[in-house]
């Protein structure tokens, strides 16, 4: 079979048109449209749908695009294309940060875990910057990245931190793999995976060993007058900020302080402190660069072992079994991972 030329096609045919072709076209046209939609990531969170499509070539395909929303909101976000792969740097720092951060995240996944972009099929990484007015957030909307500028009083712009970018793009990876439900323990695991790989993107960009890393999430995102060094700490959950306006970092480090709440989808950004700290403990005890061994164990668990309803205990057994498969039964790595989950009271 002649290889299908994906590249170029999806940048010419807009996604809404591809969707029409996918629904109503002739069989070969529908096939082309589906492949291009999958490549561009316009099929949302449907691993089973993508599973039937052939994999992209094993060659890495880094394709980034950054759009400027010019302070408009909306779903999906809309904007003007301001930088694409290989294009010149912009005068807009947020555009370059989104572009470079997406590149560093792509590189971690491709160079270390042999993953070809968010969907492992080389999908384009599309980012929207300057979303809404003074928007205090960044999110993965199922297909693309969206970044707010922050209010300038509490939060700076959300592209400022490379780990925030790695965090958001990892939500995309999780969506295509374990597809962890965004609620309670599976949701907190989903959040933790994003913090883990967000931190690893940063550590690798800075060429830091586990011992040298700060293990903070969003360092520099809080404005200088706020009493806090970051939003979360994997090393010491619950200590990232303590401020008269924001209150105190509510993250627990161990199961005994697990927070039962209906806020925040059942505390997904709160209880993620527990699996975050487990990863920190494992990476520190293994030593060296955290993305190499600890990161690989967590990545393979996310890719192959975790399911949408997996809880913390499920993550513990998944990572322990991956460590066993990669490094041997009774290996140092396996014991370290076991100790880490014991350390946070999950097993």
């Amino acid at each position, binding site marked *: 079979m002649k290889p299908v030329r994906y590249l170029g096609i999806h940048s010419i045919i807009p996604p809404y048109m591809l969707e029409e072709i996918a629904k109503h076209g002739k069989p070969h046209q529908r096939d082309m449209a589906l492949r291009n939609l999958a490549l561009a990531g316009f099929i949302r969170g449907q691993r089973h749908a993508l599973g039937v499509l052939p994999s992209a070539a094993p060659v890495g395909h880094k394709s980034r695009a950054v759009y400027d929303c010019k302070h408009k909101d909306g779903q999906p976000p809309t904007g003007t294309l301001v930088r694409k792969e290989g294009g010149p740097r912009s005068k807009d720092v947020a555009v370059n940060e989104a572009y470079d951060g997406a590149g560093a995240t792509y590189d971690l996944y491709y160079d270390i875990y042999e993953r070809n972009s968010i969907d492992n099929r080389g999908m384009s990484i599309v980012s929207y910057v300057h979303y809404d007015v003074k928007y205090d957030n*960044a*999110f993965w909307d199922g297909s693309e990245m969206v970044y707010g500028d922050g209010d300038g009083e509490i939060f700076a712009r959300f592209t400022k931190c490379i780990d925030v970018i790695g965090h*958001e793009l990892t939500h995309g990876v*999780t969506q295509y793999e374990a597809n962890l439900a965004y609620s309670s323990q599976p949701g907190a695991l989903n959040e933790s995976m*994003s913090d883990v790989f967000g931190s690893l993107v940063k550590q690798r960009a800075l060429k830091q060993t586990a011992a040298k890393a700060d293990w903070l999430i969003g360092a520099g995102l809080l404005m200088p007058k706020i009493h806090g060094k970051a*939003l979360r700490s994997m090393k010491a959950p619950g200590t990232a900020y303590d401020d008269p306006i*924001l209150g105190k970092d509510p993250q627990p480090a161990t199961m005994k302080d697990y927070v039962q709440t*209906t806020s925040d989808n059942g505390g997904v*950004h709160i209880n993620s402190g527990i699996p975050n700290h487990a990863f920190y403990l494992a990476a520190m005890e293994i030593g060296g660069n955290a993305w190499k061994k600890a990161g690989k164990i967590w990545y393979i668990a996310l890719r192959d072992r975790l399911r949408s309803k997996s809880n913390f205990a499920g993550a513990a057994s998944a990572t322990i079994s991956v460590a066993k498969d990669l490094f041997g039964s009774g290996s140092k790595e396996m014991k370290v991972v076991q100790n880490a989950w014991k350390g946070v009271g999950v097993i």
Partner: protein
Amino acid sequence: MRIFFERSGGFSGITMKTAVDEKDLVPDEAQKLREMIEKADFFNSPGKIMSRSPQPDRFQYELRLEEKGRQHTVTMSEEALPAKLKPLVQWLMEKSGQTRKGKGSP
């Protein structure tokens, strides 16, 4: 009438809360609030308005309204926020911002 509002979640996971008592508002503002609640059809809104495919790191809003022996709570996700409830949520966000800076009602 009293309103309790909470925004949780988002990338930061920082929860913001505010409480508004109608009697603390100037008449114009109280009138505006009444209209927003009426237009939002708040007391007939379902208790949970969530997206079928939740987007990670979006905000979650919880709104509780109490008046004359009746009360109603609505929890909604940012991406599922109905247009008719948006002005009320935006107004409450502004209120909680003012309260944070110590400029608004106590």
